[in-house]
């Protein structure tokens, strides 16, 4: 179980503090598929980085399975079972896809067959890719799928995906939905937290959290929240801004 309590994150900008995340609290229970959505620039990716430990909150606390992990490093959080897929995957000269999957799994002698299994899951023809370097010779879409494969190989208890659909074509987008479904089937204790604008990903969520302006504007079961988000067309951004507007009116 992951719990954020009153998490705030400021950055210094032109001699003044700017609040990126403002007093955010929510809980992700075990075996839940939660999608965080909301307008661009609302703080969603920052939230994912705060959970993975890449950024540290200015105030507030993050708990994982009841333990305060606010002060723990990225490595320590990874070892406790938090996985994180980058929105923009990193390239490495000389490191092969196989190397990366072996590092991810923690099994340095993981067989090529097993590594190929993870690549097949993300729709890559494994034999063509397992010995490729994770460098600029790979396309953005290929890198993105390899990034997701590293999280599959890691098999974390809490998997965080930052816009996994970005840069992925339609065919692998459908595949991506299946990847999430398989992840859930394989381990019922696992929770998945996805940052996404995609309606199809929102449709398979158990819960949806709407983040806008660095705050939680709504957090509810998918059945309760999705119709409202979708009522005015498919664009989540539009729906979110509408939702934000109506909330601001209520607050006045």
């Amino acid at each position, binding site marked *: 179980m992951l719990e954020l309590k009153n998490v705030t994150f400021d950055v210094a900008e032109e001699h003044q503090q700017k609040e990126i995340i403002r007093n955010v609290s929510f809980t992700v229970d075990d075996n839940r598929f939660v999608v965080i959505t909301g307008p661009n620039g609302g703080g969603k990716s920052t939230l994912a980085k705060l959970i*993975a430990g*890449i950024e540290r909150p200015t105030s507030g606390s993050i708990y994982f399975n009841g333990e305060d992990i606010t002060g723990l*490093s*990225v*490595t320590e959080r*990874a*070892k406790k079972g938090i*996985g*994180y897929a*980058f929105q923009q*995957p*990193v390239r*490495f*000269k*000389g*490191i*092969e896809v196989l*190397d*990366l999957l072996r*590092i*991810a799994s*923690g099994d340095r002698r993981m067989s090529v067959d097993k590594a190929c299994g993870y690549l097949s899951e993300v729709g890559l023809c494994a034999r063509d890719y397992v010995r490729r370097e994770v460098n600029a010779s790979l396309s953005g879409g290929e890198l993105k799928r390899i990034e997701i494969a*590293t999280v599959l190989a*890691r098999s974390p208890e809490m998997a965080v995906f930052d816009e996994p659909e970005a840069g992925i074509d339609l065919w692998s987008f459908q595949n991506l939905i299946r990847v999430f479904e398989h992840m859930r089937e394989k381990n019922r204790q696992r929770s998945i937290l996805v940052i996404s604008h995609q309606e199809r990903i929102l449709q398979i969520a158990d819960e949806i959290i709407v983040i806008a302006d660095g705050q939680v504007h709504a957090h509810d079961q998918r059945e309760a929240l999705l119709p409202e988000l979708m009522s005015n067309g498919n664009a989540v951004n539009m729906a979110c801004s509408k939702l934000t507007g109506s909330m601001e009116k209520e607050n006045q």
Partner: protein
Amino acid sequence: MDAIQKRILEEVADLHGVPEGAYNIRANGVSTDRRSTANIEITSKEDRSGIDIHIKPGTKNESCHIPVVLSQSGLEEVVYNDFYIGADSDVVIVAGCGIDNCGGKDSRHDGVHRFFVEKNAHVRYVEKHYGQGNGTGKKILNPVTEVHLAEDSSMEMEMVQIRGVDSTIRTTTAELAERAKLVVRERLMTHEDQRAESIYIVTMQGEGASADVVSRSVARDDSYQKFDSRIVGNCNCNGHTECDAIMMDHAHILAVPQLEANDLNASLIHEAAIGRIAGEQIIKLETLGLTEAEAEEEIINGFLK
């Protein structure tokens, strides 16, 4: 051969015993063991220190090992080795030098290698340099390599220096005839206050020749590296040189890629990039459970693989 010498031999030539094929092992200034084969003949030079290696035309899939081991502190030597590679042959040559210096005097080995590669022959050349020992004396290697590639011949050179050499100036010159091809892959890592200079001058004389000289290096601590690579195109030819370097700590790197085109049809490219390890690379590996130090090692190992 004692235990120290055997250990160095493993490092520089991956040898755990007597190699297959032809070989000449030089230890502390003298040839200690040698074998010629039906197709590869190794003979001592008459006029100065060194050997001649003659490979018969048409020799295929054979190898020749010529490792050098120095374990006597203060020994300084210049050795001249000439390779005559017959037409249509396809061979692997493994050179390499390791120095163990536990004393206070400098140890130095300067190997001067000349390659005469005949028509349509192919050579894969592997050269590893390595140093060890806690003495205050320096471990110095200054290899000079001269390559002559005849028509349609090719040579792949793998130059590796990862650890323990205090000072090195590597000078490699090559001349390529029609359709000859040269590929150089240099991998270098320097530590502490070590200095390493690599100088390449590759001249393409014949139509259709191609050269690709690429260095990947890591400079740590207070070490200094200089990569000075010049590709000269005197005809219709293709040349590329690249220096890709990672800097750490307080290291210094100077990259000087140079192109000289003397013909309208010479197509020459150079690239050079120097920088620290990208922070996001470390973070990615940390999210996979590695510590910062482990992530750095992994990135460097991959980079120099």
